[in-house]
């Protein structure tokens, strides 16, 4: 029976060039416009590395210090640039070290192509040295994966990999190439993949759904938008802004939707979800029409589904049909790319404004400011807060920086308080919650958006999960700014222990090393701040620095992040203390 690979091959052009499979891998990447990849060499991928040596003037390879770092760097690159990130590793442990990054990219819909070497095809299944079934392992966490055992299949498979990774709802793709396929020769010709017959990246938009949605919006008294990363992935920021401004509907965002709409926009009403803002969470359960735009109703957004927006009609703008009615039933599903659907619905709606409804958000803002925000940004206590560090960074960067955050309390504080003027500026591990994400992701983000300031905000726990990537920063000289908010605790877990486990702080206290010395060991300029009066100058110095810079800020050990929706509670049961 004819396989798809064979079908695809038939479509390739006739003019060919003889070369090895390994060289073909490089030529495919170049043909896809790739000029930067992250990886780590090893036995089963050596033929490709040998070709990388020859092509180093055209294809830059960044040697990370761990394969996980390569995947996160590729993710950071993709998130900041909008292009496909590429990571490469050897078989066995090289491939298994990719797993966390791939799973992270899958749940956060990040376009990434991972290439792994594999033992020779004659050794497959023999438990050979560094053989692991990475196809089997990565199946549930990839959008697509494929093992190549024949050199001549390489161009068509890589073309398909890039097409699948970037089209529709993006995601990670893994290509596993046996060593003999890398060594073997083929007649090389490359043509980009234009389609896969069993795969429809963007569903058709039913014009009736747009009309019905417009009609419902027209009748709404208290409509509310919640937008997600779909807006950023679809590059629909302008369409979203136009839609929000014409409709006059208050717009809240999910953690991954952050930065798609400038922080200062008058209709930006803040973040939804577990540590989101008070108003949008409360009013989710009071709005009459909820417009979900490019978001997937994650449980951290919805809290208890039984009590989530039950009073509201739901309009779901979505590219992935499997997301419709998955967690929240949509009254109207507007299928398609939000860049198109938002543009198409715009002429169907009337200009409007909802002043008294918007005032309800503002009233909640005032309550939240008095109870939470004021103390977080301008603490009355002697110890430093995470929030005032973010405020200090805002002051120096004017909201123009890419903020890369890790996972935990500092992440929630960064996402709540960082100010943004541009899209693709918030890089964080949302769905998987991968501690250790930020340092390598910041390296990728800076390389993906070299003209922009990139500031990584990391906790003392997550920092030590991928701290070895300081070596990558030193070797490449990539000028990322690293801020570790050190509370000597795994702060978010400690917060839960305090609130829900009677303060039994099991294994959350950290005895930390001298982080400044470690950074200096990598020849990275470093400073530690323990007092408020030194903070702003240190941030200023860090932002002014043309090279990489490490700033440790010792913050209050036992602060909690509020507001908070306790796990399993309703969004409207959000707590301020």
């Amino acid at each position: 029976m004819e396989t798809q690979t064979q079908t695809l091959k038939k479509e390739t052009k006739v003019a060919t060039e003889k070369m090895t499979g390994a060289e073909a891998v490089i030529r495919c990447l170049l043909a896809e416009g790739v000029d930067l990849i992250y990886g780590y060499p090893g036995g089963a991928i050596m033929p490709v590395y040998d070709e990388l040596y020859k092509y180093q003037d055209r294809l830059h390879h960044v040697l990370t210090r761990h394969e996980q770092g390569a995947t996160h760097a590729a993710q950071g690159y993709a998130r900041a640039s909008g292009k496909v990130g590429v990571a490469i590793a050897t078989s066995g442990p090289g491939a298994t070290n990719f797993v966390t990054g791939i799973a992270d990219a899958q749940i956060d819909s990040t376009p990434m192509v991972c290439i792994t070497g594999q033992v020779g095809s004659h050794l497959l299944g023999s438990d050979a040295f560094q053989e692991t079934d990475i196809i089997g392992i990565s199946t549930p966490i990839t959008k697509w994966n494929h093992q190549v055992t024949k050199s001549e299949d390489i161009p068509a498979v890589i073309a398909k990999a890039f097409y699948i990774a970037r089209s529709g709802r993006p995601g990670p793709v893994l290509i596993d190439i046996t060593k003999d396929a890398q060594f073997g020769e083929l007649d090389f010709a490359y043509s980009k993949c234009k389609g896969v017959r069993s795969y429809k990246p963007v569903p058709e938009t039913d014009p009736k759904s747009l009309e019905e949605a417009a009609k419902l919006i027209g009748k709404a008294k208290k409509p509310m938008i919640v937008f997600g990363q779909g807006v950023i992935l679809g590059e629909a920021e302008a369409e979203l802004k136009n839609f929000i401004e014409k409709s006059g509907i208050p717009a809240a965002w999910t953690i991954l939707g952050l930065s798609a709409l400038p922080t200062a926009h008058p209709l930006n009403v803040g973040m939804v979800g577990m540590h989101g803002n008070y108003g949008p969470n409360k009013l989710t359960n009071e709005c009459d029409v909820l417009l979900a735009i490019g978001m997937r109703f994650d449980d951290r957004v919805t809290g208890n589904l039984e009590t989530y927006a039950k009073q509201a009609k739901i309009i779901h703008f979505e590219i992935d049909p499997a997301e419709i009615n998955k967690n929240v039933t949509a009254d109207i599903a507007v299928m398609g790319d939000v860049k198109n659907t938002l543009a198409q619905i715009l002429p169907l709606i009337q200009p409007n404004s909802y002043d008294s409804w918007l005032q309800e958000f503002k009233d909640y803002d005032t309550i939240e400011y008095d109870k939470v925000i004021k103390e977080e940004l301008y603490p009355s206590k002697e110890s430093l807060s995470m929030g005032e560090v973010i405020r200090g960074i805002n002051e120096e960067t004017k909201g123009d920086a890419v903020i890369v955050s890790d996972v935990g309390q500092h992440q929630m504080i960064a996402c709540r308080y960082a100010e943004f003027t541009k899209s693709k500026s918030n890089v964080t591990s949302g769905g998987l919650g991968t501690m250790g994400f930020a340092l390598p992701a910041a390296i990728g983000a800076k390389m993906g958006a070299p003209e922009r300031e990139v500031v990584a905000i990391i906790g003392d726990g997550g920092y030590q999960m991928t701290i070895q990537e300081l070596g990558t920063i030193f070797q490449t000289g990539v000028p990322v700014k690293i801020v570790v908010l050190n509370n000597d605790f795994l702060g978010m877990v400690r917060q839960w222990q305090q609130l829900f486990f009677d303060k039994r702080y099991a294994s959350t206290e950290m005895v930390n090393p001298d982080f400044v010395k470690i950074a200096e060991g990598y020849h990275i300029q470093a400073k530690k701040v323990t007092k408020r009066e030194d903070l702003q100058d240190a941030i200023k110095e860090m932002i002014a620095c043309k090279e990489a810079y490490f700033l440790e800020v010792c913050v209050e050990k036992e602060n909690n992040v509020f507001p908070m929706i306790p796990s399993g509670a309703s969004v409207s049961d959000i707590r301020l203390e």
Partner: protein
Amino acid sequence: MKKENYTISVYTENNIGLLNRLSAIFLKRHINLDSMTASQSEIKDVFRFTIVIKVTEEQVKKIVGQIEKQIEVIKAFYHRDEETIYQETALFKIDSKLLFEERQIQNVIKNSNSNIVTVTPEFFVIEKTGRRREVDALYHKLEPYGLMQFVRSGRIAVTKDKMHISKILENFAEETV
């Protein structure tokens, strides 16, 4: 919502690894498969999986959504039992001595609408095709005599409705020309 038997028909490309990808969808949701069969379909180069699970309709809808999301899945459908024509096949291996020592067994076989596939001096094999309860009924009748081996296939099913796979494939061919 009530749990029911659903037959999921999945039309796919014929690629290594797809079986793993499909079974992972059930594994992730902690759903046990009643049966899964894979075969060629009525269309050249298109494979077909027939999966039987007992879940609620809401669950089966979401599962079909996740299945269709897989790149190499062309289309997936779900049907209730009454919407399909379905069969299973079972093989019974029985000691040949029983044919002569236990006269009653001959009547059981005669009345069961089964076929004798092979007879050797040591054993004979009968094949029974039908619905699960028919196969089970025969099993319960033969089991007291002692079965040397028993095996039953997964369900295979065709639907009463049309499934427009060829049309999907033709549309794709037109779009990409």
